[in-house]
């Protein structure tokens, strides 16, 4: 066989194939017209010449293409832009249904390894969502659709044949042709769709996505007569009312929204504490937005209409009479409504109301009216009208004689509304063609499958949520023989150009772009956003349907079901993504499963009614005895039944309209009493190895008239139990001063409240006589407090290196920078993007559900989530809770307890203040992990990287073959750890080193080798939408991190241990409205601390209490907000 030495492992398309494909010839022709002529009759010499030269231009046009295996054929000439070991970054964007996320992708030797947000796109500031972080893993998923069901040439012929059969000229005009596509933001695609509609005038073009987020746009259309997209400008907001809207985490463009919103919550010092914005959240399930709320009201989703009508009435917004009647159908604390509305009204021009997209059009119409009345800072953008929906496609298919059904992406067999019975409709078409990246349910049911390229392998374009044009450019040649969507559409339309690059280039020009290379290099086209629309006063009355506002009666036998995307798989598209599956849900901390989420009240009622236990029977150890009350602690895993550290979910059957879905129950405090939350997107049946047997499929009970909310559901408990892999069993902080919270006005009066908490507040200062030294001095000099021993300062050169000794030598080795981190707890929304960013950056393996159940998840960074309640007697799960998040990773303690106990010197301190791990040296005694107060060290109990999930226990008898393709994702600058070694957060030491090398290069002879502030961003910091994490040099007083640490809210977790962590936290603030019925003088977590430890042992308020006597005691002296049901 000719050129047989070129053939690599199977997933690589052999170069031989590649060289002879028309696509390759096209490509070469485009880039190298001269070289292309030589491609006839390939010989090795010619081939290499062409290849090498092409790669030379890789950085300009064809970004970062994969090149042949370098072990066999080294570069004969080094490509210009590639320096071995130095990553190359390219811009692109992750296509979404309604927005593309602009990103920058890090590539190593042609392999994309890490996705990061593109900071050029200001609204997102370089942040991305957790899904974008994880999306790179799908590229290397060995279980994705790796090839079409027929050969590539046959696919092209088939597409041409379809065109011929249905074209307006000579065909049936598209009579027997139906398209069902996933919505897309791509203008190139839109152009091709228009062309298709022209070519096949009688064809049906429908679009469907499982989770519809366009209600507000449709409401705007009803009000204003044109489809308008509203983008609130939270940076201008002082008061926000979120109506069942998780705008901080689960909305379109929520990265930008969260970013803007948190800007109004950044508090520099106690003086501007009360300038903080205030967030009211009325919601049915516990969301990230609810966790940030200053006032949170539990209310079922179906009651939101009546609620917002009451708010509207209180604000004096005129409503139709029927709406007013509907408003009265809800019994809710009138004072809550009144005071909330009054607060919004008082901040006219700076108050925004947002509503969840699952709420009815009428709700959105009222919200638009309210926002108009409040002159809310909202931008309305004109967007295109929606295409026909899936119901039209089903209707057309059911009519019969559909010859060809083309499904472009998505997975309707799995996620179409169950009453439409898409699978049956699809089977009615003579030929169904599925084009997608996955081998999924729809692909299985299709007669012909065309494998789609991953976005990191494709040319394309798209728009962000605000319409800014962004490119999609490939980082790598398709790993498998897959197709680009634009090419498929172009071939169907028999367009002139079928090559995606040319189509995109042409679209770019049409959109008013001039410099395509600049577009690629910036990653966006400035000024290409959607046109803003002036909103003339609309016709609200017509848009409001009072019957949609009527609040239904709910009870344990008349439940409301709320469908929402799973935090693991989205609408199901990430079901085979191990990172997502193992990433704990922000609120429940469940991995590898979804669960039927119910409120504590409902759980109790079901228990009583059906006699099956949901809560643990054990009583807290100090319940009955005065003596043990002094014990100040409880141990019950008091939210769910835990057996040997495994959550035992009671399996329940949920029936809606005669359809039943079965799944484990998980009790979530803060849920509306009779709302059941069903996360969608799990329980896929045709899926790769990762998604196999994960969760249950909630789509099986979702109908088209209840896509977001369904009613009249009943829960029947069974005697079965199901193990849920929960990474955080205990949800109470136990009154410990771990996350410190205060109210804004309290902070204003007691700026040092955070440091008056915890054991350290009444223990001698760790630094003893040096307590008053500045952070900078402390960071370098390693003061020992009251210790009798002298210690070398951190920045000292190693004592055993002779050449560093002496004054002269010291001058050559200036003080090393001292790294530290500050985390602003007030900014963290708990989105967990940092967890996956860290995983992606640091080659962190996944371990599978079984191992998570055993407590062996490997995440270097975790988000601790604690609940606190106003009154918690430890016997019952509270119904109303406040949520606090804390990102926890290696704290890089200066006196690290782990270092002292390692018997082999595998974990040591370096002179930049990093607590480092020498994996090669680690023998795995795990002593360090035991002695770590923060429990952030992770141990490789098995060969996670070599063995597959499910094969860990087989030892040498099990297969050792990690799919080779998975290795391509690995960051070459981070060691892939073997079994038996400990690992942990390194402050992204590889990034620090890269920046230092870079700085040395820049410094040249000047010797200024200090890395400038901000040049290093750790992976978690980089991805954080709200900039909660700051990293930098703490020996430099001017650095951002030093400024953060200078805040009086800054404290060390467990500071009393004198471990002196380099990562410190800024206490969280809440900003309650004192007029509200559920106002609190202290956040619940603080009140709990005061009650448990504050008054007796710490006396932490000594100073403060004297200044403002009686101010801060008896925190909880108000009525709880009555939760409506």
């Amino acid at each position, binding site marked *: 066989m000719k050129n047989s030495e070129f053939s690599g492992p199977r997933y690589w398309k052999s170069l031989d194939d590649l060289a002879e494909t028309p696509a390759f010839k096209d490509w070469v022709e485009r880039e190298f017209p001269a070289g292309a002529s030589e491609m006839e009759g390939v010989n090795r010499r010619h081939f290499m010449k062409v290849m090498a030269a092409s790669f030379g231009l890789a950085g300009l046009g064809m970004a970062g293409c994969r090149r042949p295996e370098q072990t066999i054929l080294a570069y004969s000439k080094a490509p210009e832009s590639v320096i071995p070991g130095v990553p190359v970054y390219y811009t692109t964007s992750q296509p979404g249904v309604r927005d593309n996320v602009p990103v920058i992708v890090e590539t190593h030797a042609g392999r994309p390894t890490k996705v990061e947000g593109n900071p050029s796109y200001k609204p997102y500031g370089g942040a991305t969502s957790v899904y974008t972080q994880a999306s790179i893993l799908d590229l290397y998923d060995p279980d994705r659709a790796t090839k079409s069901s027929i050969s590539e040439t046959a696919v092209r012929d088939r597409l041409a044949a379809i065109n011929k059969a249905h074209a307006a000229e000579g065909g049936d005009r598209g009579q027997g042709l139906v398209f069902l596509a996933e919505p897309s933001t791509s203008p190139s695609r839109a152009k091709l769709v228009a062309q298709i509609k022209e070519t096949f005038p009688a064809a049906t073009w429908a679009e469907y996505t499982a989770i519809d987020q366009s209600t507000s746009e449709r409401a705007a259309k009803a009000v204003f007569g044109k489809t308008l997209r509203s983008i609130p400008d939270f940076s201008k907001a002082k008061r926000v009312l979120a109506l069942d809207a998780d705008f901080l985490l689960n909305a379109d463009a929520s990265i930008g929204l969260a970013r803007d919103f948190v800007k109004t919550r950044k508090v520099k010092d106690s003086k501007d504490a009360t300038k903080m914005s205030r967030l009211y959240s009325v919601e049915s399930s516990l969301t990230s937005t609810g966790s940030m709320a200053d006032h949170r009201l539990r209310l079922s989703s179906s009651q939101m209409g009546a609620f917002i009508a009451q708010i509207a009435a209180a604000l004096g917004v005129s409503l139709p009479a029927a709406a007013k009647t509907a408003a009265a159908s809800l019994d809710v604390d009138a004072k809550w409504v009144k005071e909330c509305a009054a607060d919004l009204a008082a901040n006219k021009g700076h108050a925004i109301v947002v509503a969840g997209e699952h709420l009815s059009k009428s709700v959105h119409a009222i919200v638009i009216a309210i926002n108009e009345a409040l002159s809310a800072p909202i931008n309305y953008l004109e967007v295109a009208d929606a295409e026909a929906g899936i119901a039209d496609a089903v209707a057309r298919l059911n009519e019969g004689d559909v010859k060809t059904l083309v499904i472009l992406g998505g997975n309707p067999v799995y996620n179409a509304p169950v009453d439409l019975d898409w699978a049956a409709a699809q089977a009615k078409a003579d030929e169904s063609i599925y084009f997608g990246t996955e081998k999924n349910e729809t692909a299985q049911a299709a007669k012909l499958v065309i494998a789609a390229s991953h976005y990191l392998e494709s040319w394309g374009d798209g728009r962000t949520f605000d319409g800014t044009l962004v490119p999609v450019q490939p980082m790598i040649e398709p790993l498998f023989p897959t197709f680009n969507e634009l090419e498929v559409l172009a071939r169907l339309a028999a367009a002139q150009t079928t090559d995606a690059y040319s189509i995109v280039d042409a679209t770019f020009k049409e959109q008013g772009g001039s410099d395509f290379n600049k577009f690629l290099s910036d990653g966006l086209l400035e000024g290409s956003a959607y046109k803003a629309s002036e909103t003339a006063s609309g016709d609200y009355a017509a848009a409001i349907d009072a019957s949609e506002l009527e609040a239904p009666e709910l009870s344990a036998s008349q439940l409301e079901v709320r469908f929402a995307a799973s935090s693991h798989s989205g609408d199901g598209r990430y079901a085979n993504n191990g990172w997502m599956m193992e990433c704990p849900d922000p609120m429940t901390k469940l991995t590898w499963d979804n669960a039927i989420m119910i409120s504590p009240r409902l759980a109790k009622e079901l228990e009583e009614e059906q006699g099956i236990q949901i809560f643990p029977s054990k009583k807290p*150890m*100090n319940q009955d005895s005065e003596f043990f009350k002094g*014990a*100040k*602690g409880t*141990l019950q895993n008091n939210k769910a039944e835990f057996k*040997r*550290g495994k959550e035992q979910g009671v399996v329940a059957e949920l029936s809606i309209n005669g359809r039943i879905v079965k799944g484990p129950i998980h009790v979530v405090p803060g849920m509306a009493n009779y709302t059941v939350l069903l996360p969608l997107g799990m329980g896929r049946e045709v899926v790769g190895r990762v998604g196999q047997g994960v969760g249950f499929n909630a789509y099986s009970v979702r109908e088209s008239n209840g896509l977001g909310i369904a009613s009249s559901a009943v829960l029947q408990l069974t005697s079965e139990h199901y193990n849920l892999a929960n990474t*955080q*069993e*205990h*949800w*109470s902080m136990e009154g*410990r001063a*771990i996350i410190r919270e205060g109210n804004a006005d309290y902070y204003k009066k007691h700026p040092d409240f955070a440091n008056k908490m915890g*054991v350290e507040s009444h223990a001698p200062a760790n630094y003893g006589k040096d307590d008053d030294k500045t952070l900078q001095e402390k960071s370098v000099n390693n003061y020992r407090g009251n210790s009798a021993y002298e210690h070398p300062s951190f920045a000292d050169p190693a004592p055993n290196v002779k050449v560093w000794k002496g004054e002269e030598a010291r001058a050559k080795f200036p003080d090393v920078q001292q790294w530290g981190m500050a985390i602003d707890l007030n900014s963290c929304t708990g989105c967990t993007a940092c967890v996956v960013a860290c995983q992606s950056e640091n080659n962190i393996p996944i371990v599978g559900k079984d191992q998570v159940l055993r*407590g*062996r*998840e490997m995440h270097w960074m975790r988000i*601790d989530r*604690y609940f606190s309640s106003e009154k918690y007697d430890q016997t019952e799960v509270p119904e109303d809770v406040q949520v606090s998040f*804390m990102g*926890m990773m290696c704290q890089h303690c200066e006196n690290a*307890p782990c270092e002292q*106990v*390692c*018997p*082999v*010197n595998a974990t040591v301190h370096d002179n930049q203040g990093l607590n480092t791990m020498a994996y090669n*040296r*680690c*023998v*795995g*005694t*795990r*002593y360090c*992990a*035991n*002695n770590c107060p*923060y*429990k952030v060290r*992770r*141990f*490789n*109990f*098995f*060969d996670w990287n070599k063995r597959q999930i499910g094969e*860990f*226990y087989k*030892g*040498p008898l099990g297969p050792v073959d990690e799919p080779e393709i998975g290795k391509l994702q690995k960051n070459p600058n981070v060691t892939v750890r*073997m*079994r*038996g*070694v400990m690992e942990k957060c390194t402050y992204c030491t590889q990034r620090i080193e890269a920046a230092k090398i870079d700085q040395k290069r820049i410094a040249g002879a000047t010797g200024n080798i200090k890395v400038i502030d901000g040049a290093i961003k750790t992976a978690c910091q980089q991805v954080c939408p709200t900039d909660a994490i700051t990293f930098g040099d703490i020996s430099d007083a001017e650095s951002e991190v030093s400024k953060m640490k200078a805040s009086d809210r800054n404290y060390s977790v*467990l500071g009393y*241990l004198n471990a002196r962590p380099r990562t410190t936290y800024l206490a969280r603030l809440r900003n309650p409205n004192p007029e509200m019925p559920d106002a609190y003088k202290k956040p619940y977590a603080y009140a709990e601390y005061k009650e*448990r*430890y504050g008054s007796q*042992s710490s006396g932490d308020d000594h100073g403060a209490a004297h200044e403002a006597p009686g101010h801060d005691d008896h925190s909880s002296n108000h009525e709880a907000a009555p939760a409506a049901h």
Partner: protein
Amino acid sequence: MATTTQDSSIDATQAALLAKVQPAELHEQPLVTNDRDFNWVTDKICRIVETKTPTWWWICMAVALMTASFTGLGLLWLVSSGVGVWGLANPINWGWAIVNFVFWIGIGHAGTLISAVLCLLKQGWRTSINRAAEAMTIFAVVCAGIFPLFHVGRVWFAWWLFPIPNSNAIWPQFRSPLEWDVFAVSTYGTVSVLFWYMGMIPDLGVLRDRAVQRLNKGAYEGAGALAKGMDVFRKNFYAIFAMGWRNAGNHWRNYEMAYLVLAGISTPLVLSVHTIVSFDFALAVLPGWHTTIFPPYFVAGAIFSGFGMVLTLMLPLRALYGLHDLITQRHIDNMCKICLGTGSIVGYAYIMEFFIAWYGANPYESFAFINRAFGQYWWAYIMMFSCNVFTPQLFWFKKVRANTALVWIMSIFINVGMWFERFVITVTSLANDFLPSSWGYYSPTMVDILTFFGTFGLFSVLFLLFLRFLPLMPIAEVKFVMPQADPHGHHGHENGDHH
């Protein structure tokens, strides 16, 4: 002439005086009863090794070997797949392995205490139990050593814990208590072996000489070639290990001196080993571990469990080999009393921990201790407390001590209790430490359980081999404490030694 008169007059006066004052007889139980002679002792001890292997030995050996194979297989699985086959996880990164290690090391304490400390304190009663106790110590250390060695993630690199200059040019980290463990345990093991072996040399000489005598007599007609072959083996085997022992006066002088020196070296080790093992915990920052009471408390606990184990082993041996004249009620009484004493110290420590936790006013500490007793591992705490604190208190009663079966059962309770003590300390502190978000629960896997269970098999295999091939008691030393050995003793009295 004058002198003799004087002598006899003194004798006479003395006798008269004694008759007059009628001194009370010391009712101390003799250490060898039934007025046995020296030859009986030699014969009794040597015949254990020399007679035909009893059937029960074979049965026990078979069972022990089978049990030991669990450890072997468990470790094979562990090394070939990863430490994950055990029940460990974050936050409980030390589970049964470390519990078992401390447990076995604790058991290993009695031997050296008996041979060294009691030797220096001139406690004659040590002689009939010290050899077996020392053997127990060594085998316990062998069992103990398995766990810290194999619990590491990469056992093939465990040698990095030794300060061997290697191509990496990295020393171990001398601040780590785990590193101190390596030195403490290996020193302890080495000295124990030396001490044990040194003490055995005269007895090995005896066994050699008896084999030589029988070979010289050549009276094997009835017994056959096997018996002769065994004696040839014994002659050579014991000859090698007796190292030319000839019973000469200077041999004995050197022997006695060396024995004393080793006793002196071993004595601090008795204290140091478990002190250092306790540092594994005490030097950590964890609430429940970070406790200054640990060193004395661990040492007391170790002696407690060690004596428990000696009782567990010696009582059946006494019955099997008919050693009632050598291991007397007095021995049993003494051992029970030591258990009582050390058990009470341990009990005191348990209570003192609570006091300090309260007095220290550190919420994390007080929680750790309350949690120990009343949290999710309360059952382990109850096991520990009842076995270790209540059981030994029964030894106040003579009747209890005299009931051999009861003493034996209670000795097992003691060891169960001491295992649970280590479990409670190791696991409860780790399971619920500083941040509630990381709290967890530990449960062992079958591999954990079988690996531990198997070490009892390994221990038994070694102990059975010891019984079969080595002298169970130091023959000469037993003779020293017999009434006949005291040239100044009063031969009229039955109860030999009262010094």
